[in-house]
């Protein structure tokens, strides 16, 4: 896979829903090939921000830019992995992966080869003809990841991709995800509410404050994500630090929800 050299930048992002401010003055910069993780208390606007970064939501203010070189085999510079998988139930596993390639200039033979490669990458080769309903949650999300990577994106946006999975599957897929991201060299923006996951996968962890979401702090982990383990004392320390930063806001957000 060709490494990405795209920088993702957001400047002065603000957004409101029906007059209720959700995001204010968000500035972000994700260098090529880096994994940025967004964390924050419930309702702080993490997913809204990801939607804005992906062009799925028009912000009330600010701008998002992609800058850099796109690899020649990149068919779509920016793709998504969804929390609820967003698989088409009427398509097989191979059909779902192929969807991302069908309206591109890729010839049918090359498309089939690309689908086979993605099935291999995500360990789904034996399930190419299975329907989504026949798969476990973890396998469904593998299909989602395979579909997103099939177009050789420069930037991959992941909205709580592991949150719908049970703890065991989540742990296994975290490791796989780390390996896949490291191998693909893609620039990643990743939303999660799981702080251990943030420490395991993030190179730049952006902590948002409670609503309206503002950048409270940015933590950097200057280590490649490949080879990281959940029991690493340094990563556990990052997780503790993240919790310290979020705890008060999370409690207040919870009280706000109760009041609402």
């Amino acid at each position, binding site marked *: 896979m060709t490494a990405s050299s795209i920088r993702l930048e957001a400047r002065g992002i603000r957004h409101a829903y029906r007059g209720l401010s959700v995001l204010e003055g968000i500035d972000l910069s994700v260098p090529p090939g880096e994994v940025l993780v967004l964390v924050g208390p419930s309702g702080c606007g993490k997913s809204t921000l990801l939607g804005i970064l992906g062009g799925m939501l028009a912000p009330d203010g600010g701008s998002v830019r992609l800058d850099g070189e796109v690899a020649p085999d990149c068919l779509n510079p920016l793709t998504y992995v*969804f929390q609820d998988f967003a698989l*088409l139930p*009427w398509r097989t596993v191979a059909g779902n992966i192929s969807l991302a390639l*069908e*309206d591109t200039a890729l010839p049918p033979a090359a498309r089939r080869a690309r689908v086979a490669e993605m099935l291999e990458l995500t360990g789904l080769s034996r399930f190419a003809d299975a329907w989504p*309903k026949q798969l476990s949650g973890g396998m469904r999300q593998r299909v989602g990841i395979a579909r997103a990577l099939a177009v050789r994106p420069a930037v991959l946006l992941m909205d709580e991709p592991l949150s719908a999975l049970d703890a065991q599957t989540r742990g296994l897929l975290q490791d796989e995800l780390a390996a896949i991201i490291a191998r693909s060299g893609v620039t990643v923006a990743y939303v999660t509410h799981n702080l251990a996951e943030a420490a395991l996968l993030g190179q730049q962890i952006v902590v948002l404050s409670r609503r309206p979401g503002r950048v409270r702090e940015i933590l950097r982990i200057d280590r490649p994500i490949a080879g990281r383990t959940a029991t690493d004392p340094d990563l556990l320390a990052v997780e503790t630090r993240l919790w310290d930063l979020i705890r008060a806001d999370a409690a207040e957000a919870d009280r706000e929800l109760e009041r609402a």
Partner: protein
Amino acid sequence: MPRLSGPIPFRARGFAPRDVPAAGVATLVALLALWQLAASLGWISTIFLSTPAGIAGAIRDLALSGELWMHLGASLQRLAIGWLAGTVAGLVVGFAIGLFTLARSPGMAVVSAFFPIPKIALVPLFIIWFGIGEGSKIATLAFGVFFPTVINTMAGVDGVPRGLIRMGQSFGLPWRSIVRKIVLPGALPAILSGFRITTSIAIVLLVAAEMIGAEKGIGAFVLSAGNLYDVDNLMAGIVVLSAIGLAASWLIGRIERALLGWR
């Protein structure tokens, strides 16, 4: 403190009815046998209600004389043309309302205003507009099929999870591909269940239209048999209509199995 000792009784019985097809067939056979027996014993007057054997005999005679095929052919032709016309128009308008803001409010206003009209009441109007021939009958069927098709199609399109459409957009799928690969298959279950309803409606309207100014067709045949107090033939016509409904339902079931296997 009271003591508790013993196995836990199973408490989750019932509320899980199963389908036993053989029991359904056996019930129908038993009803027919009872009906025949009641007529044979003189409990039921055959002047007012024919017997299963009498109906079967009438159908056989009609088939051998060719009368059945003449009436059935005329009815099936009207049913096919009327249903298809109403369905195609309903699908186009239903998709337009489901997909375009410009079509939604005007389309909904028209559908809401016209849908509650009993379509049989429009037969005389259609005769004035389209004449006593085929035009008025087909228009009645098409009009009756059109509105439920619009409503089911629109509901089907509305029911496609927006997340799937956003997924398609996030992968840069063009509008036509999103409609063809996401909206259409997503709306298909609702559209096909609508077909079940519209075929029943079409058969009802077919009979009504054929009873007003038709020489051929099962509806006309049933009316004519009724006027002659020919209960065997009258009920034979009803059985044929029921068979048309069953055949249509079977065909839609086959289409559903073929197209919705993923469910």
